[in-house]
């Protein structure tokens, strides 16, 4: 399923600075992210990688005493949108920009209901829309074959690797354009981690992925570009 990657910019970050409790965490970041690419974010702990991810889906707003300046444009539905413009709904943003966390966090409900949850939040209640979307998402996350006969089981009974794929499926069900992954394989064993890596490479087909990673081997295996963070600023890499 390879075709020449279309080099179109999906995300444009201009002069982004972020401070928490008056301490600067990110300084004057300028960067673009292209469609159908995987960009790895690397750097020492505390350099701002995970924080940077949260500036792209507005999750930084849940941190008290946090301040953000600068502009983030994301191409959604054809046109660039200033995601921090007045009136741009942050809920809507998070449906187009999905996030996967370091430790899998399935909700205490069945596998099916976990995946269907974002649809429910978005107001979708038609069974004939929900069921196919759930199956499609599980397929894209390489999980369908393993769970198709037990969709009603509690999600917490899955293994670590399966739970992480569940979270990826859940993030994919609304068909976002961007997927943010914060050290997605850190809490998994090597084999489970490899499966996730393969999955990510397949996903870049229709998505722009940003992955924070501490594993240089992993970065070499999957990344098209590397963004190195150091003390809140970036140094470009190839």
């Amino acid at each position, binding site marked *: 399923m390879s075709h020449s990657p279309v080099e179109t910019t999906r995300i444009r970050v201009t002069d982004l600075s972020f401070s928490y409790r008056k301490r600067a965490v990110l300084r004057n970041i300028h960067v673009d992210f292209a469609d159908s690419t995987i960009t790895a974010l690397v750097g020492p702990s505390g350099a701002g990688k995970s924080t940077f991810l949260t500036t792209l*889906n507005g*999750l930084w707003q*849940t941190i*008290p005493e946090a301040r953000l300046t600068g502009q983030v444009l994301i191409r959604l539905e054809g046109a660039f949108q200033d995601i921090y413009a007045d009136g741009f709904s942050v*809920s*809507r*943003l*998070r*449906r187009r920009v*999905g*996030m996967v*966390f370091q*430790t899998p*966090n399935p*909700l*205490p409900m069945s596998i099916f209901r976990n995946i269907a*949850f*974002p649809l429910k*939040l*978005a107001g979708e209640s038609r069974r004939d829309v929900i069921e196919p979307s759930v199956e499609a998402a599980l397929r894209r996350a390489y999980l369908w074959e393993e769970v198709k006969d037990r969709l009603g089981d*509690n999600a*917490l*009974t899955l293994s670590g690797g399966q739970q992480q794929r569940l979270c990826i499926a*859940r*993030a994919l069900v*609304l068909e976002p354009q961007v997927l943010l992954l914060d050290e997605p394989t850190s809490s998994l064993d090597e084999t489970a981690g490899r499966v996730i890596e393969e999955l990510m490479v397949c996903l870049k087909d229709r998505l722009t992925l940003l992955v924070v990673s501490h594993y240089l081997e992993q970065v070499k295996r999957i990344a098209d570009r590397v963004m190195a963070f150091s003390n809140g600023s970036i140094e470009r890499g190839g």
Partner: protein
Amino acid sequence: MTTMKSADRIIILFSWSGALVLTGALSAILGYVIFKGAGTLDLKLFFGDTAPLDALTLKRQVFDGLFPAILGTLCLVVLSVILAVPLGLATGIYLAEYAGGFAKKVFNLFFDILAGVPSIVVGLFGFALAVFLHRHVSREIGPCLLVSSLALALLVLPYIIRTTQTALEGLPADIRLTALALGATRLQNIRHVLLPRSLSGIMTGVILAVGRCAEDTAVILLTGAVAAAGVPRSLLGHYEALPFYIYYISSQYANPEQLLTGYGAALVLLVICLGLFAVTFVIKRRLSYNALYRA
């Protein structure tokens, strides 16, 4: 073998004596109530000379039994909880999820004060409210079941607020973010994830409130509880209650038999309140187990 300094010896003596004294006091209280009250536990205690079935179906009045008082306490508790829980829950949610730093401190200060106000003062407020309503709204209103319930609701409101707030604030950070990252609004997050997760804490608060309403005497003393009113008939009428009965009997008993009914009532009230308390233990244990091992 090191020899212990005398300071350490004193501490050990102190701790053990303290524990023994308290245990002794508890045994004395429980023992006394059970000893004196157990013998009185029969149908006559509850229903007097009226047939139980007639009493339960409210066909006949009960004159010398605890049944009206028990029913009165029940109505009181139900009404107070209905009034206090929605208000307390909403306030707790506001404090945990919406209030900013300064607002939170100010509100918390007020609710700590409310929690500290002596119950007799809350009762006095209830009484004053009744008088106020009597003068300015309707001559029908006076100290009654409704006023007592309002006052009791006010009494237990801080419990509900506090346990709701603590339960919500105690949720781990990643739980809070999960639904938000999927596009949930704040309210959706509260409704679908945060509240269900906090349920055990909130339930504990509600049950503690129930216990508090069942045992309170000071508030109802001033707002409508009387010694003989029969089964509660209307919201605007006087009523009987178990703790009031115990208080009343302790000073107004005419003969030893009446005093014994006091012991019986004390035993019943004790069982009810301790039972409710035990339920909160079970809830706390059950729900933490569930959260980890739900299959």
